[in-house]
Structures are given as structure tokens and as C-alpha cells.
């Protein structure tokens, strides 16, 4: 792997306080211990990348952060996950309310089979975020702009969202996720179904989203992690092997497994 290809992002952005703090998280699927004692601090206004070989638990861990794993009956989570100091696994927490704060973008673009407008407006509508049609229009427009999709779709907002190309669909899903103004945006391999051009667009977008949100991205591509993230966590067989500044991880990994992975020897 040619390390020179990586446009390593400058890590000197003001990554101030911790947004999500996970302490001793264990996840079990039935008898399978999928996540083993993971502790990680996810910073605000920064992009954190989770990398690791397939099946290492990075997506599972991502899904515990907004309790999407609740929908899987055999899944069991232990440990503490604090969102700004509040435990998201507290019995008083309604996962629905949590997910409005911690949005998610999935691996495969999954727009609703509705119009582009309705796709973006759905979140604000169900959460009652807007008081009038004009306000809703504004939210839709600004969300589509944030997702760098506005110019392409502004003339056909009422065309079906499923009629867009793959990259556009994924950006639509991102617009849909940011429309509810979440504090954290979780992205589960958002570019794995996209071509290089669409990938570049989405990556650029992720970099811009960092100014407003805390972004966590799971990716298979180490180049991508290098390009978009400030912090990188390397997972292997359910363990968090190494976590630190992206530049550190890629240029000077402390753990031999990390080094083996980024140099392509395992994975």
C-alpha cells in the first residue's frame, strides 16, 4: 500500500470535549461475545473512523451507540455509554428520542420510496421540529445543501428518491439524517456501494459535516479513514486494539496488529 496516496487530514482542528464516552462495553449475540470490553472517547466536531477486518465488530459497536441493536432480540449489551454524561442505556431513555440525537446513515443507500422532499422532511415531521410549511421547506433545502445534493435535485424535489443514482441516494440519506439536526452522525460504511466519484463527493461532505456534528464512520478502506478522519479506532476480533489520532495510527502504530492490518498483512 502506498502511504503517499493518503491525504492525511490535519488533526489540529479544535477537537475539544468528548461527545460520547464508552466504558467497558460488551456486546453479545447469544453466546457470541462480539465486542470485548471496549472503551473509547468520541470527540465532538471531529470525524472518528472505525477500521478493522470484516467481522471485527466495528459495525456492531457503531449500532450500539444509538441502540439500533435493540431491534435484534438476541443482542445483549453491557457497560456504560455516555452521551454528554448521560447513560444512553438508562431505562429512562427512550431509544426513539436517542436516535433523533444520534442519527445514522447505512451501508446501502436506503431512501424511502417517496419523493426527495418527503424523504428529507420525514424526520422533522415526525419530531415536530417545524411549525410551518415554509420552515419545513427551509429545513429541507438546508439539509440538501449540507449533503451537497441541492443543486442536483432542486428542480425535482417531488420526484421519487429511489430514482436517483446510487451516490445521490446516499447523499439523500445523509440529508435525511442531518435534517433532524442530530448531535452525532453514525455512518456505517457509507461509501461501500458507491463508485469512486460518488465516494469522493460523500467524503468531502463528511469533512464538511464535521463543523456541525460529531461524525463516526465505519469503513473498510484505510485510505478513506486516512482521508476523512481525525481519530481512528482499530478493531480486531471484537477488541479495540488501538485508538488515537489518525496520523499516529497510520504512521506510527503502537500495536503490531494495527501495523499488520494497515500494511495489508491481515484482513
Amino acid at each position, binding site marked *: 500500500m502506498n502511504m503517499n496516496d493518503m491525504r492525511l487530514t490535519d488533526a489540529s482542528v479544535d477537537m475539544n470535549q468528548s461527545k460520547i464516552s464508552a466504558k467497558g462495553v460488551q456486546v453479545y449475540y447469544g453466546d457470541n461475545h462480539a465486542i470485548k470490553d471496549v472503551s473509547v472517547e468520541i470527540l465532538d466536531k471531529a470525524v472518528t473512523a472505525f477500521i478493522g477486518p470484516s467481522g471485527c465488530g466495528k459495525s456492531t459497536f457503531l449500532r450500539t451507540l444509538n441502540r439500533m441493536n435493540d431491534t435484534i432480540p438476541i443482542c445483549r449489551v453491557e457497560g456504560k455509554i455516555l452521551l454528554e454524561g448521560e447513560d444512553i442505556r438508562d431505562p429512562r431513555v427512550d431509544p426513539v428520542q436517542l*436516535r433523533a440525537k444520534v442519527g445514522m446513515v447505512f451501508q446501502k443507500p436506503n431512501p424511502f*420510496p417517496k419523493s426527495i422532499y418527503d424523504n428529507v422532511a420525514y424526520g422533522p415531521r415526525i419530531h415536530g421540529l417545524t411549525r410551518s410549511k415554509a420552515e419545513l421547506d427551509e429545513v429541507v433545502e438546508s439539509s440538501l445543501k449540507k449533503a451537497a445534493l441541492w443543486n442536483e435535485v432542486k428542480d425535482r424535489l417531488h420526484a421519487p428518491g429511489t430514482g436517483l443514482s446510487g451516490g445521490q441516494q446516499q447523499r439523500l440519506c445523509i440529508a435525511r439524517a442531518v435534517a*433532524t439536526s442530530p448531535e452525532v452522525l453514525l455512518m456505517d460504511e457509507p461509501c461501500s456501494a458507491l463508485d469512486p466519484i460518488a465516494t469522493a463527493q460523500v467524503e468531502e461532505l463528511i469533512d464538511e459535516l464535521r463543523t456541525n456534528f460529531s461524525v463516526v464512520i465505519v469503513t473498510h478502506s484505510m485510505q478513506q479513514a486516512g482521508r476523512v478522519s481525525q481519530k481512528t479506532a482499530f478493531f480486531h476480533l471484537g477488541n479495540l486494539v488501538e485508538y488515537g489520532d489518525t496520523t499516529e495510527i497510520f504512521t506510527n502504530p503502537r500495536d503490531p496488529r494495527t501495523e499488520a492490518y494497515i500494511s495489508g498483512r491481515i484482513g
Partner: protein
Amino acid sequence: MTDLSSAGAVPLRSVAKRSILTASPEMKRRNAVEKRFRLYGLVAIALSLSILALMLFIIVRDGSSAFVQAKLTFPVTLDAAVLDPKGNGNRDEMAKVTTVGYGKVLAASFASALAAKGVDTADMSAKDVAAMISKDAPGQLRQRVLADPSLLGQTIDVTVLAAGRIDGYMKGRVTKVTAQRDGNVTPEQLDLADRLIAADILAKKFNPQFLTLPDASDQRPEAAGLGVALVGSLYMMLLVAVMCVPVGVAASIYLEEFAPKNRWTDLVEVNISNLAAVPSIVFGILGLSVFINFMEFPQSSALVGALVISLMTLPTIIIATRSAIRAVPPSIRDAALGIGASRMQTVFHHVLPLAMPGILTGAILGLATALGETAPLLLIGMVAFVDNFPGAPIGGFGDPATALPVQVYSWASRSDPAFIERSNGAIIVLLVFLLSMNVAAILLRRKFERRW
């Protein structure tokens, strides 16, 4: 992983040396197998299609004649002295004149009409001549006069049903040879029928009354109609749709989207599948003992029929709805949950609209099977001879009624061959109903289907 290449040492039967322009014996054998298999499939399809075509042909051949009927057209003088003895035009008073009185009026007018047209009836008794007219005709004339007393004293052209045997003669069911052995008709009457056809009094005409009249007794198949059965079936379909679809859809949504996956839900699932496989007659027994004997609902009513059929249709609808819900891609649920929709919102905003075509098709096909269901209705008394139309909803749901398939059954089991024709006619009506329901299912599916 690289040690695979060393396995190349094992000698394989080489296929590389042969030209690809000539088929190898192995390939020929494989192609022959495939060809044979496709042939089997074609034969199977041809066989089933021809059986279906044969069945439809026989039904249409035997049943289409039920929609035409031999009818007599002649002027009738409504003698006020006979039909309104008090002479005051009061309907209640007039209603005291029974069909016997009208029968006499009809017979007298018929005889004079024959005389006027010069039809020779010299070799026949007056009674035999009058017997050319259906026994149901006086009743129909009476209703017409009672509905409009101003007709009294006038001479009006009426078209009345001819007797069943005359109808049979015109349709080829009765011949002069069989008439000799038949106590109900004489060869002379059939000769008279020939003369009447020539005199333009007797003709086969379209018979809409087949769809509107109630059932008639064994003596007058010509007057038997599907009216009560149609109303009964319609009431039952209405009730089944109202009871089954909401319950079935709600149950499916709960089982698919909300129910915890544990032993209890497994048990429920297995039992729903089992219920779908229970023979329908068992539901009939259940309906008899629970709804009629225990809960004392009126027997032979559309209500009880609908309850029993609902029990039968419910598993079908639940199974269809569940598979429609399951076919909605999980990514849509994830998408909705991921932006903070509740379970309920996810289901109602996204899953249900996408599952709608499947649900509708399942529900309509479930209803279609229910429409054709016979066995359980026999047990709850809907096979009875019902001469009166059930009342208007909602009260009418408790009145005695029959259903289309039951009417088919009960006509098919009567002795007069005229009823066989009617039975086939009823099957045609039933098939038209089923076909239109299936068409509705296809259209609805098209309308609600979304492109991905």
C-alpha cells in the same frame, strides 16, 4: 491459501483436448435430460390447461341456457270483476284475491289469445292448455297488479314464464318421446308449443330474473333464481371483509413487528398455519355448536355464515399479510428507526404502504376462497330453501339466506334436470364473481405497487 496450486498433481479427466465445436457425449446426455424435463413441463401445462378449458366449456354449454327462458307473450285482460270484487281499488281488499284468481284470468286470456291467433287447441283440454303457463306466472302478475292497481280493467301485453317442461322442450331437454313417459307434460302440449312458436307467442328470451328471483319449489324450476343466494353471498362477503381484514392485518402486524420472539409466538405461528389447513367442514361444526347452539344466533343467517367463514379466512389472510410485511426490505425499517421514528411510525408510514399490494391481494384472494366455500354453510343451515329475501342491513344479516355455492349444491341435488341447467348457470355467476375479484386484486396491486 497458496498450496492449492500443488493439488494440480491429481489427474482430472481432461475436457480441454476436445474441440468445442462438437458436443461431448456427456454434454449430449445433459442436454437430453434438460430437453426431456422441459417437455414434461410443457405436457403438464397443456394437460392442466385443456382440463380447465374442458371444464369451462362444459359449464358454459350446460349453464348458459339458464340465462334464457321460454316465455309466452300475449295480451291479458285484467278483469276487474274477478281481481277487485269490491270494486273500490283498495289494495288491501285486492290482496285478498289469491294467485288462483289470477291463474284463472291468465288462463282465460291465454285461451282467447290462442283463438285470436288461430292456434288450434281442439285436441286438448283447457287445463292442459293452461298448464303451458308456469305456475309462477299468476304470482308475478298479481304482484304487478297490486303494485299498480290502475292496470285493472285494462288489456295489457304480458310476458310470462312458460312451464318448465315447455322450456325444456325448447332447449332440447324434453322430447316428444320422453313426454310420453312423463306425467308432467303430454306430447300434445309439445305440439302446441311448436304451433305457439310459429304463432310468435312462445319464444326464448333473455331471463334477467335468473339473477333476481328467489329460489322456487321443485315443481317450477323455470322460476328459480339466484336472488337470495346473491344477496346472502354479498352480505357474507361484506361481513367477512369487515371482520377479517382488520383483525387479520392487525394480528399480522403485531406478530411480525412487535411480538417478542419466544416460545409463545412460535406456538401462535404454528397454530395459525395449522388452522389454515383445517378442513372447512370442521369450522362448520364449530359454528353450529358455538354460534347457533351456544350463542343462539339465528340459524341459516348470513351473520353466522360470515362468522364461520371469517374463522376460516383469518389464517389465510394472516399468512398472506405476514409474508407481505416480511417482504418489505429491513433497510426501510432501519432507515426509519435510524432517524428516530417509533416502531408504530415505522410500521404505519413505511412498512404498511409497501406491504399494501400484497395485503390487498391476500385479502381479496382469501375472500374469493371464502365466497366459494360450501361445506361449513351446509352445517349451519344455509342450505335451506329460502323463498324470502333477507332484509336490508343491518337487521337483514340475521335473516335466513343462502349463498351461491350452496345454491349450486342444492339445485344440483334436485331431481328435475331443469335444475341442473340452473346449477350450471349459478356456477357461471359464481365464476364471474371470483374472476372479477381476482381482477380487482390485480388492479389494486398495480395501483399500489411502488417502484424501487
